[in-house]
């Protein structure tokens, strides 16, 4: 895999995708191509159960889209760029494996939009800011921000955050439900990786995790009746797996299950 601004490590069934585009991990088409390639790789790798998305740039997770690009490109290019970004994040979101944003730095604008496309957001308790200040540039959060933020924090809070361009601290973000966990910075990586590994084989049924993600993510966009049908379908597939039998049996035998992804 030929990556320009990202690198991918794999260990203990966890893939760690590092964003590394100094100074601020601003994204452009090259970084999005990298992210797309990472998603593809994670999708097709049977030895990977989930992916942690982290930053190599100190103090910054991502500051969003490259403003130079937005200022200098043609409207037609910008339109295609937005479409490309949205499709990449949709792909990440519809992948039946968990993506976790491990945020140890500022996460702003398009950076937060990437983070919102992941399934869980963990953040360290540094002096970071999270927000969607695109309105201060005279535009809107166009990489899925206006759609994903209200689905995460609710319509009213989402509009508040986006129209004011205000920034949240990690604690505020936790209160709003924008992040799932806040870890002390000195233990952030340790805690994050422990959390990630707890969701992988053999202790955890990563397949069930992936299907839960799909059922929630896709199901939320469907009428209840269709969502329930999707849920049943995915559940039936899990019922047919050896892992489900092992899960039931271990429960009855009062022991820890050992899953194999079969």
């Amino acid at each position, binding site marked *: 895999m030929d990556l*320009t*601004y990202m690198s991918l490590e794999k260990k203990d069934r966890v893939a760690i995708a590092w964003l590394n*585009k*100094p*100074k601020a991990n601003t994204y*452009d*088409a*090259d970084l999005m191509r990298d992210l797309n390639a990472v998603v593809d790789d994670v999708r097709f790798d049977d030895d990977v159960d989930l992916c942690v998305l982290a930053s190599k740039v100190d103090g910054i997770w991502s500051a969003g889209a*490259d403003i*130079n*690009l937005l200022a*200098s*490109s*043609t409207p*037609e*290019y*910008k339109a295609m760029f937005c479409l490309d970004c949205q499709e990449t994040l949709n792909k990440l979101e519809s992948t039946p494996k968990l993506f976790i944003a491990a945020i140890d730095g500022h996460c702003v604008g398009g950076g937060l939009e990437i983070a919102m496309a992941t399934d869980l957001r963990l953040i360290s308790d540094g002096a970071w800011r999270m927000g969607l200040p695109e309105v201060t540039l005279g535009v809107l959060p166009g990489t899925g921000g206006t759609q994903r933020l209200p689905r995460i924090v609710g319509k009213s809070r989402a509009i508040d955050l986006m129209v004011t361009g205000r920034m949240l601290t990690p604690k505020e973000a936790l209160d709003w439900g924008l992040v799932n966990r806040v870890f002390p910075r000195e233990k952030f990586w340790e805690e994050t990786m422990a959390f990630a590994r707890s969701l992988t084989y053999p202790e955890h049924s990563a397949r069930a995790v992936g299907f839960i993600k799909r059922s929630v993510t896709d199901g939320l966009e469907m009428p209840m009746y269709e969502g329930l049908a999707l849920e049943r379908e995915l559940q039936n597939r899990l019922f047919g797996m050896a892992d489900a039998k092992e899960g039931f049996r271990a429960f009855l035998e009062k022991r820890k299950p050992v899953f194999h992804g079969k």
Partner: protein
Amino acid sequence: MVGPTRRIGMAPTRPPTWAVLETHRCTAAPGPRRVSWPRGTRRIGWQERFIPLLAHRIDDMALLDQFRIEALPKKWQDEGHLWQETYFPEMPTVLDTPNWKRFYPDTPLPRLSVILAKPDGFASFASKVVGASTETTELENRLWKADKMPDAQFMTALKIIRAQASTELGSIQQHRMVYEQLDSGSLAGMDKEIVEGIHRTDAGGHRLDSISFSKKRVCVEELRHHMQMAGVLTLDETFDKARWGRHWATETLEELFAMKPGEHVLDAFNIEFKSLLDSATFLSFIDRVGKFQLEMQHHFLYAPMAVSMPWMRWIEESYHLAAGETLMKAIAVAATLDGGNFGIEDLQKTLNMWYPRGLEMFGSELGGGLVKGVFKTLTNGEAQKIYIEEVRGKVKDVNLAIIQAKARCTREEAEAALRRIEERGETVHGLTKANLVFLPDRRFFRIRGLAEYGDYRYPGADAAGVGYVYLPHDVHGAMLSSDDRAVDPNDYVEYLRTVLPERYMTSRHWDFVKDEFLFNTKWGEPERVP
């Protein structure tokens, strides 16, 4: 590439359209044209012919063999020709062999083509540049096609190339302001005093016509530098491939050719030359920054830019610097011995005006971290520090020239005298510190970059080093204050009037400084970075 690289022995497919120089060279070059080539020597086309033909020493031959030449695409040759006819119509007189030989009998005519170091010869030049590392000398990991660069790197490369090209055209527009005066016979005021003073005190050939011709030689070489940058942008057709929906090579060249005086990328190239003092100080101080950039850019990721650097830096830029240094010294000596109505304080004021702009050409002292190791050998701050030491040496050279002229002593004796004057405050040979020049403090009269290594920022800025911070430092670096507060901009302007040339205080650039920085309320009161 637009057309294949022209190889030795290949005839050109069409005659040159902007070939004043080439035509001239091929028909009028003296003696060396009769060099007899050993059997089996490769035959050469018109574009290349003049270099070996004008090489008249074995050393030159060895040197020239390390370079190759390419012609610009016709469209850009024509654009260049139009620009030259508008802003530099005197060029043919410089390229007239008798004229040239009169002033530079031992120097080949300038080469108005795109001149690229051959990969084999590149390392020997690159190893000598400031901040060179092993990677600087190696071309293996460079990119020869622009479309191989990711967007961010491409835009950084473009930004640097654009700035470089803009300086070349800008400096011709600036130098013209002076040589036109010298040539017109209407010399008046201080410049008249300076030229007459130099005539009386300098036996080194600094006559009016040689000073003027020297300026025009510099212009020819600056124009070639621009052609070189145009070549970097156009000879690899992938540079113009749509990126972000735009064709950057075409757009950039069109923009560059349309830039009028005052519209250039770097401030130093938007300041009018109103005196010979400007011209001399510019060549020594501002062109020296250019030398640093040319050296550092041997590390450039985009290989065609990297291999463009050796000829520009090692063959051409050296002359510009030397021309400035010798003229500065001649002016300083004239000011000391027979200055008429000008004195060393006029040179000092000129230095005060240009030096801050030179420092700012490096960019913010805190920046350049991403460029180092990819496009340049050093960060902005690292390069600037070395530059400061180098120009400190040039200021010392001027002072030694003053002492030597006044005391008619050796350089060693002059150095001893200089130490007594500067370190002990003595009067030696009738000279005191006030009769010498000094390098202003790096914080004086800065409008871009960092005034104090990022200790200050303007309100609302996320970080120091971003944007302009008003800090009224004097030429020695002390903050001008009243009641423990920085003095008001109006008071600072009054101070600047005493240390900057009067001619600058009525210039377009000074208006820009006042309107955009000193009296622009958008910047607010500077605050200390916590």
